[in-house]
């Protein structure tokens, strides 16, 4: 991570909390420093450029191409692919968003996290059929072509795997030293565009007494989940577009469900079928995987909403400090219950907290970027962040979260992330 331009030592009234956290006005005061530096050097712009001699200003660049790609110098910015079963099942696993390399709130399409259960199907949209049947007056089939003619809606939201942050869950008794993208990169955000599921359910004349749906993907796992009708009629989208372009194969091309705020697994990819029912189906995923075991051995079933959460992404594991001085602490906050209202940051291991600046717009149930200036004195300290959402939900400490679930429980871990900054500039994941 880059150190910001060194500034004069902060005034004592500029500290917002312990550990060197600074009020925003400390940044505003130092804004004039940079503007004068070029003039002081006495160079014109042409001379400055010629002296530097950048070769790319002296010859023609590459031809225009139909589809833009990242710079070859950004090749290291890619998803980490984890395959729990190894090469025998190379389509089963996760690809995590490299949060340590991203600074925005919308995830680039090629870097959106992925959880796939048996590979990515290459679906020919002309042959794809999507059907709604069960407790409906008129069972119907919709082609992609016809769905593209329906009135559409867009929603900006996060999708988070229920297993996100499993490195900090009860699966591990010691904190793993992996980049922040490994720790929390099973969350991403995008603008999803498509047809309201309620519109299509209405067209089929779905039974008002039916309380549940079964949604099924056209992948080689036939991944399926039950969805409450109440959610389906509220805000679920049959999405066709991701950040303006058609959904990527890894994300469910040609169509997927998007359930804002609900655990990722329910956002069924490669959607082929919805069955209207008066009971949940108790599919393999919603019983054996996406249930949460409590200390008494019983398991919570149908725990859908992803709780209030945040993590600092800069500085964080996967990055290195560049000596004492002023840094911007930056990170992401989100809640499946609604909009992020506040994010507090501690730079002294949780002894004192101060409010971070939230970047606008703060979308409900999407990623919010928070920022705060921090003057690191070079001594060891621990950075933390915690979200408070508009419903008053906040994040528990890792110790408290851990105690409220059974041994080995990994899903729905929204514990506070703690990063210890060491004098040598290294950054460690720690359990507090």
């Amino acid at each position: 991570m880059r150190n910001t331009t060194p500034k004069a030592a902060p005034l004592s009234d500029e500290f917002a909390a312990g550990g060197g956290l600074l009020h925003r006005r400390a940044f505003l005061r130092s804004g004039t420093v940079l503007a004068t530096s070029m003039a002081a050097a006495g160079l014109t712009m042409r001379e400055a450029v010629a002296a530097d001699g950048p070769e790319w200003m002296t010859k023609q660049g590459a031809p225009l191409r139909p589809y833009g790609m990242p710079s070859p110098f950004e090749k290291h910015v890619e998803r980490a692919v984890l395959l729990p079963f190894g090469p025998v099942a190379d389509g089963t696993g996760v690809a995590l968003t490299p949060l340590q390399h991203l600074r925005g709130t919308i995830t680039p399409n090629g870097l959106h996290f992925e959880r796939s259960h048996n590979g990515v199907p290459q679906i020919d949209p002309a042959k794809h059929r999507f059907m709604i049947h069960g407790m409906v007056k008129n069972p119907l089939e919709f082609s992609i072509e016809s769905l593209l003619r329906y009135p559409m809606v867009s929603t900006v939201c996060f999708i988070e795997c229920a297993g996100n942050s499993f490195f900090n869950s009860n699966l591990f008794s010691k904190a793993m030293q992996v980049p922040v993208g490994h720790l929390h990169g099973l969350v991403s955000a995008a603008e999803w565009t498509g047809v309201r599921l309620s519109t299509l359910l209405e067209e089929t004349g779905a039974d008002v007494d039916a309380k549940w749906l079964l949604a099924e993907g056209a992948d080689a796992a036939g991944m399926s989940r039950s969805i409450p009708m109440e959610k389906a009629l509220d805000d679920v989208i049959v999405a066709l577009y991701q950040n303006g372009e058609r959904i990527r194969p890894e994300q469910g091309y040609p169509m997927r469900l998007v359930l804002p705020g609900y655990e990722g697994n329910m956002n069924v990819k490669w959607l082929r079928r919805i069955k209207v029912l008066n009971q949940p189906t108790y599919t393999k995923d919603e019983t054996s995987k996406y249930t949460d075991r409590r200390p008494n051995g019983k398991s919570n079933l149908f725990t859908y909403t992803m709780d209030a959460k945040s993590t600092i992404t800069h500085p964080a594991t996967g990055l290195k400090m560049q000596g004492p001085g002023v840094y911007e602490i930056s990170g992401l906050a989100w809640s499946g219950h609604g909009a992020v209202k506040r994010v507090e940051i501690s730079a002294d291991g949780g002894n004192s907290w101060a409010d971070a600046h939230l970047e606008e717009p703060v979308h409900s149930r999407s990623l919010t970027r928070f920022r705060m200036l921090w003057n690191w004195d070079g001594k060891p300290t621990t950075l933390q962040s915690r979200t408070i959402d508009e419903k008053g939900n906040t994040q528990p400490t890792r110790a408290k979260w851990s105690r409220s679930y059974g041994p080995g429980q990994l899903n729905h871990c929204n514990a506070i992330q703690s990063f210890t900054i060491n004098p040598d500039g290294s950054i460690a994941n720690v359990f507090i």
Partner: protein
Amino acid sequence: MFSFKEIFADRWYTAAAAAIFGGFILAFASGGSQDGAQAVSLGKPLSEEVIAAADLSITPDGTNLPAGSGTPAQGKIVFAKKCAVCHGPEGKWREGLAKPPLVGGIGTLKSDKPVQTVGSFWPYATTLFDYVRRAMPLNAPLSLSDDEVYAVSAYILSLNGIIKENAVIDAKSLLKVEMPNRSGFVSRWPGHTH
């Protein structure tokens, strides 16, 4: 890719004409639905046959369980041929095999080392049939016959000691299987009790 030349030579006049006349056509076409109440309605009716062929899912009440049957002994043969390479011959985990194991762990869920398997954790046997049929084996999903799925289900249930070795599993008997952790779940969805 097309060049500017192509656009101007071949499409310019067409595009201009469409822009001029299209406005009139749209104005007429939208005349009938000024109130905006007219919905797009493009779904095509589905026949019972098409639905039956596509409807894979099985609920705990047994809806959709097909005809056919299988025994643990028959399942052992299918399992050895098509499942053991990943799950081990008896569904028990060891290094190099797929996790989690399919067998064992019954009674461990309250302990310090809970082991979640089909036997110790899954609440309904219908889920076992549904999942094996749709997703297994990993390299050839939907390749097992219904008899084979009943047999493999019976074998896994028998390895867990949930059914007897000589049991015959079919649509009726599968529904009668009492899974050990049937009452081990608490629904968190308002209005739905498990």
